[in-house]
């Protein structure tokens, strides 16, 4: 009988350890839930239909918005999944009381959900490129901004998930949060339609900031240099701050109070 565990069994935990493995776990979990995947595009599709009926000329803008909204809405899925695993399954204890890093758990979950839903998002993005006649630079900008919006939303979603003790409360608040901030601001419609007094607020909200930058790029919206800077810097800084906070929070909340 040994007195000390062999060191080979006991590798120290390093930052982001387990991200790839948990990503794959999440992909398998989500892939077995085809109904959930089918419902992922409902809101976007309904809004696109409305826009097309009311003003077909805005469908290019709406498709860009739908792509960004889809990335943003993944935050709601992260929130729901993290809370469900923790509250209903207590499986987070299984993973976190072990060598896997807490930030690897968070990022693996977020990227796993992204991987599963990437196909419909890519379809919307492709339609936006084709219908809106986006050039390569604008297309790459769309991809980059959608990525930032996803990282922001996933980080916020994970942080929020830790505050709930009951899944019933989550259904209401998560849906409210992601729909209000993803649909009400000028994401699916031109930035200029938004009340001027509230435009700075919209430029500080990641989905509408990204949409405004892309609308400005394709000439649908005229933004001043200051507005472009506010939207771009705000988006990058907010995303980085929230991501770092999520990593810190993931580590902090492994242990209860």
């Amino acid at each position, binding site marked *: 009988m040994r007195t000390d565990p062999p060191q080979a069994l*006991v590798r120290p935990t390093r930052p982001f350890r387990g991200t790839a493995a948990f990503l794959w776990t999440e992909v398998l979990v989500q892939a077995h839930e085809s109904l959930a995947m089918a419902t992922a595009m409902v809101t976007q599709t309904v809004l696109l239909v409305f826009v097309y009926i009311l003003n077909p000329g805005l469908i290019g803008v709406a498709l860009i918005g739908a792509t960004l909204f889809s990335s943003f809405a993944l935050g709601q899925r992260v929130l729901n999944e993290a809370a469900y695993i923790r509250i209903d399954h207590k499986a987070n*204890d299984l993973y976190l009381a072990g060598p896997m890093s807490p930030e690897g758990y968070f990022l693996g979950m977020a990227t796993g959900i992204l991987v599963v839903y990437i196909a419909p998002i890519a379809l919307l993005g492709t339609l936006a490129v084709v219908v809106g006649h986006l050039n390569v630079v604008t297309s790459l900008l769309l991809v980059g901004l959608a990525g930032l919006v996803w990282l922001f939303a996933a980080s916020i979603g994970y942080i929020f998930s830790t505050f709930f003790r009951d899944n019933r409360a989550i259904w209401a608040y998560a849906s409210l949060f992601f729909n209000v901030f993803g649909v009400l601001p000028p994401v699916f419609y031109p930035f200029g339609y938004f009340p001027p007094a509230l435009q700075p607020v919209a430029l500080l909200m990641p989905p509408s900031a990204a949409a405004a930058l892309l609308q400005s790029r394709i000439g649908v919206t005229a933004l001043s240099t200051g507005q472009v800077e506010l939207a771009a810097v705000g988006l990058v800084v907010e995303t980085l701050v929230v991501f770092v906070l999520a990593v810190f929070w993931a580590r902090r909340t492994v242990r209860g109070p």
Partner: protein
Amino acid sequence: MSDDPLRSVDLRKTYFTKGTPPVEALAGVTMSVRSGERVALLGRNGAGKTTFLKIASTLLRPTSGQIEVFGHDVSTHPDRARPYIAVVPQEGKPFFHLGPREMIYTYLRARGLSRETSKARTEEAIERMNLTEFADRLCITLSGGQRQRTMVATVIATQAPLLFLDEPTIGMDPFARREVWASLRDLTTKGSTILLTTHYLDEAEALSHRLYIVERGRVLVSGTADDLKRSVGGTLKVSLPEGAPQAETFRSFGETVVDGPSLTIIVHPERLGELMELALARSLTATVGPVTLEEAFLRVVGRNIDED
């Protein structure tokens, strides 16, 4: 610093919730678990077992006191303790949209084991826990007991040096429970150490080298199951179905319990003959059996409740 897999000294945990009085869940727990041991924590609901396990497994901060896993301070350096441990959480469930095989394999990969090792250990755990028949069915389609077996298989497959199992066999049938026991015994012969909680006292007795009985956040008794049984004043139990009216006569033999018309006496084996003669003289029917761990537990905890 200790080389014991687990050691706690005067460990305390108080829960503070706004608007309600503080709840002292652990009130100074000192205990140790030696390498290769299987130790059971027993206690009533709310006695502090799960709180202790959560602190030991780095999932909860203690209010004060010291706790170490393989010499690493769990309070200050949980990240150093985590590679040594694996946990079956209380009421934990596997992912419903994974099959047992996927669940175990992906979990081992998340712990950093190689593909080959993960695959081999997954198959071994599936076979060991008798999960082969439904290894590829989604857990959502499995019974509660089968899901619990999946959870236990997942953790057993880690072969972690220190395993914490919070009511690991809850909801399992007697056959499945015995499979778990065999697997846990096998793991400790390979060098792992196990701390478990259970409300099945036959399980605690069959499985554990030592037991700790916890009540209101304190350790009441520790030792082997036999030590515990001896601590209640004898290892034999004499039941007299019509003996209650004559309870006073038998009081000198040991602890007596009156339940309706019947009388039960805990007695040392050396006084058994004398007691049986007296019962015969009084024309009382008597049956003799060993004191069970459950009876000892009820008496130890019951005494404490009475004293409080």
